[in-house]
């Protein structure tokens, strides 16, 4: 039972990150019908921004409570990556609007190859260490041990999902976003600025991916240029299994995937861990070809 709960806890923090990255995939796909292969590289960019600014920020804010450098690093990563996202939107997504779904797919594959190899040229192919912004505290509750970083990752992920959910449901721009996702022609004829909605969507998706990247960077303590591939593929699957419509659905599937993977790695074998997500995907696509909670249009 102790081991079971332990794996459960380990799974939650990873699963929550899958959900955060999957959220950005889902948002961009819903609004623009673009399968953004560069999305995992936004996540990678977040980890590297944490690597670059982590040390200096930590030095500059010595003596202040650890929440200050944490927020600064998060903001820098989110804003920096959102800027890259906006550039990609302007240069790649906008000119290709209205083409078949395959065209932006290939174009973003090019962007992804570019970003990943740029990181490799600048930072080298080997893992780099990310400075521990939080001094590690280990908690033990009822035989289950976890660190404050794990706790933080889970809390931040849930907060992001709640915020984005509020943004989409409760704000004016969020309503405009949903309108464009539903029927962009009618939204446009009602006066919605489609370009602005596209920019907002890409910025939100890139920023959330970057914050997910900072969280995972702190969790693992290091990053490589290819970190996006593993997390990216899993979270893409997570978005497909959940369907792109419901943020809560993505959250549930992300957590379930993370927990199942941790359990299988703990009880069966870690080499079968990757089989779960793809097996699940095939099953869902065959039995419910719109995702569990509906709609890839």
């Amino acid at each position: 039972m102790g081991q079971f709960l332990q794996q459960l806890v380990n799974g939650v923090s990873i699963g929550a990150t899958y959900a955060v990255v999957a959220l950005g995939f889902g948002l961009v796909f819903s609004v623009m019908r673009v399968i953004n292969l560069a999305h995992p590289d936004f996540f990678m960019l977040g980890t590297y921004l944490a690597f670059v600014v982590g040390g200096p920020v930590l030095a500059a804010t010595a003596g202040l409570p650890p929440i200050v450098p944490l927020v600064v690093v998060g903001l820098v990563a989110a804003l920096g990556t959102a800027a890259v996202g906006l550039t990609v939107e302007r240069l790649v997504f906008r000119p290709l609007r209205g083409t078949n779904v395959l065209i932006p797919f290939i174009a973003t594959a090019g962007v992804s190859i570019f970003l990943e190899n740029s990181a490799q040229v600048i930072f080298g192919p080997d893992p780099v260490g990310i400075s521990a912004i939080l001094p590690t505290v280990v908690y033990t509750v009822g035989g289950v041990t976890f660190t404050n970083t794990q706790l933080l990752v889970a809390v931040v992920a849930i907060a992001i999902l709640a915020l984005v959910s509020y943004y989409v449901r409760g704000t004016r721009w969020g309503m405009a976003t949903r309108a464009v996702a539903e029927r962009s022609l009618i939204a446009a004829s009602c006066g919605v600025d489609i370009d602005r909605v596209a920019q907002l969507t890409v910025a939100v998706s890139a920023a959330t991916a970057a914050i997910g990247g900072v969280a995972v960077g702190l969790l693992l303590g290091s990053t490589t240029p290819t970190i996006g591939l593993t997390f990216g593929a899993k979270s893409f699957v997570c978005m497909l299994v959940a369907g792109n419509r419901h943020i809560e659905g993505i959250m549930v599937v992300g957590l379930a995937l993370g927990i199942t993977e941790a359990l299988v790695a703990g009880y069966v074998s870690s080499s079968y861990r990757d089989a779960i997500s793809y097996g699940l995907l095939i099953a869902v696509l065959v039995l419910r070809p719109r995702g569990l909670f509906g709609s890839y249009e």
Partner: protein
Amino acid sequence: MDLFLSATWQAILIEAGYGAIIATGLYFSNSAGALSVAHAAFAGMGGYLAAVLTTNMGWPLGPALVAGVALGFVSGSFLALITLRMDPLVSSLTTLAFGAAITVVAFNTPYIGGAQSFSGIPPLTNFWEVYLALALVLFAAWRFDKSRLGMAAQACRANEIAASAMGVPVGRVKVEVFAIGAGVAALGGAFRAHFILVQSANDLGFWVSVNYLIFWVFGGSYSFWGPAAGALILTVVPEFLRFSDAERFVIYGLLLTAFVIVRPQGLVGRWPTGVAPGGSKLGALIGKSRSARDHLRGPGRR
């Protein structure tokens, strides 16, 4: 086997040659409107089977190639049957999941090396045989273009409902062309295994499939020689960029993105991928491509 080319260039051209065979496999498979993200997996399955036959069973290359092609054909038919009734996007996602699942299986099968890769494959691929095979495949593709099956596939791609109303057996055509393409990809994969002499499960993965899709789109998806041209150009061009691997791919990524934006129809294509001639201008304005088929389906939940 002495050529006018240096050993380095021979190696690059062999790589381009089997890449072109696999890309032409995509041409067949996608000719009826499918979009396969599993061709690296088909190529890898062909590679694994042929490599096991030559290495462990002592078969000569020829029969091993035939066996590899047969495996590709059978698994291609299987995947086509699963995806037959799905809409295009979902079916391509299913091929993606299929490829990923095959990769995991290969990783966890100790007999074919598992995570350590299958090594010790005899070097049986040579330059002339690869290009002879490529020539045959291209000839077949050219004949296919003008054949009953090829025309039926084009009809399915342009408008499935109209094609079926005209008496085209849509299901059979889609399964047949997909299986043929998977077999052709397996042929390329078997050549690859006997050239790089290691067959690893990573070669079956998603990004390798995307790479073949890039060849296919770059050259022009629906002309029979476009994909092969794309593979040849995109394998040879990076060699002229005299940098380290990572720097080379930075430029490759930039060029690829720029090219797709400037010429979404590919190098030799006449109309954008996946859109029949006369695709709607209105769709282009609002960010959705609506083909004739969508209009037929009418309003409501798509």
